[in-house]
């Protein structure tokens, strides 16, 4: 069985300053349901169906995307801290000017012809995925009272079972906009918020041309109690 999560470590359903949450999050209490084999199982070998797509978004030479070169090293672990080998990780983010490749991003900001901000990665035995890319820019959210999103990277992760599915965002340390972002601050617990911010690794140890950020993703589930009901 999965442990229930402490609500303080998870986003509030409705968030002041984010109007759509009041249109979309249920008004009725969420129903507590029993956990059966159905919720505690999941597709086997998901990576065979959702295989790797684009492991390098930064490119090289004349095809190099504009922006600060970064390496994201994200580790997928379960609630026991055990790595989740084979975890599928989808990553997407905007370019250095804060523009997404998505056609719905109609904001007046330049497209970078050398940047396509979407990748799918599959974790190795240590649960690690690595992505070479550029640091995304901040951007203003349309129709709001001066809300700017801090630089962030979207993550969609599958763990071992249906209920371990996780969609979240990774933030960068030292960004003043982190302090006021309604999405990051929808998590009330300060330590839980801090865990959503990647750590900058010492620049003396990494590659000469890129900043390295470490990030840990904890998906629901216990490796020590993997047996199904």
């Amino acid at each position, binding site marked *: 069985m999965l442990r*229930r999560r402490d609500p303080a470590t998870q986003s509030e359903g409705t968030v002041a300053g984010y109007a759509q949450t009041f249109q*979309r999050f*249920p008004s009725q209490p969420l129903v*507590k349901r029993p956990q059966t084999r159905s919720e505690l199982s999941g597709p086997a070998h998901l990576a065979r169906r959702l295989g790797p797509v684009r492991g390098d978004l930064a490119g090289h030479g004349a095809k190099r995307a504009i922006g600060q070169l970064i390496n994201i090293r994200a580790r997928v672990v379960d609630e*026991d801290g055990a790595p989740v080998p084979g975890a599928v990780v989808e990553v997407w983010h905007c370019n250095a000017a804060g523009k997404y490749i998505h056609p719905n991003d109609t904001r007046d900001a330049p497209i970078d012809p050398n940047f396509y901000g*979407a990748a799918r990665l599959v974790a190795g035995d240590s649960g690690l995925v690595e992505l070479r890319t550029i640091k995304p820019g901040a951007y203003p959210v349309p129709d709001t009272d001066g809300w700017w999103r801090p630089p962030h990277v979207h993550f969609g992760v599958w763990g071992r079972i249906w209920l371990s599915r996780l*969609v979240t965002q990774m933030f960068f340390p030292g960004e003043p906009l982190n302090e006021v972002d309604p999405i990051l601050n929808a998590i009330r617990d300060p330590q839980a918020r801090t865990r959503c911010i990647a750590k900058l690794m010492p620049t003396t140890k990494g590659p000469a041309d890129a900043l390295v950020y470490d990030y840990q993703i904890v998906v629901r589930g216990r490796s020590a109690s993997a047996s199904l009901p």
Partner: protein
Amino acid sequence: MSLIPTGEMTLGPFFPREFAQDANDLSLGAKGEVIEITGRITQLDGKALDNLVVEIWQADGEGRFDNPAFFGWGRAATDADGVYRFRTIKPGAIDGRAPHVNLLLLYSGLMRQLQTTMFFSAAADPVLDAVPADRRQRLIAKQEGSVYRFDIRLRGEGETPFFDD
């Protein structure tokens, strides 16, 4: 060691379209009764939602979750009319559970994934029974031949029941 699961956050409005393409047909090569599951997804003011991501997980026609010939997982995005579609196999009953399909929804303005379950009839089921009796009907799909219609209302009158696990 005991770690706290990472906080969920919204999918945002710019989920890459390519990720939600070509993943909504679970029926290929599978044994069983081929059905379509479709529905329209709306928010509080009644507006239909475009590019909302729906993922499903279900048993095979005999109620098995470990059939190597049936993947059981799929993903679709709603179109401009708020409509999603899956082609799949009608799941069988298993372990005291009535036939059902698990769904999760991801979208901008949804700070957390929404979990719900679609049933084919008002059969006895521990998950359906956990829902207040006056709301259970919202989790039962409407059959039109081989098409099962399952409209989802995120918030407001006739709101779909969602689960917290």
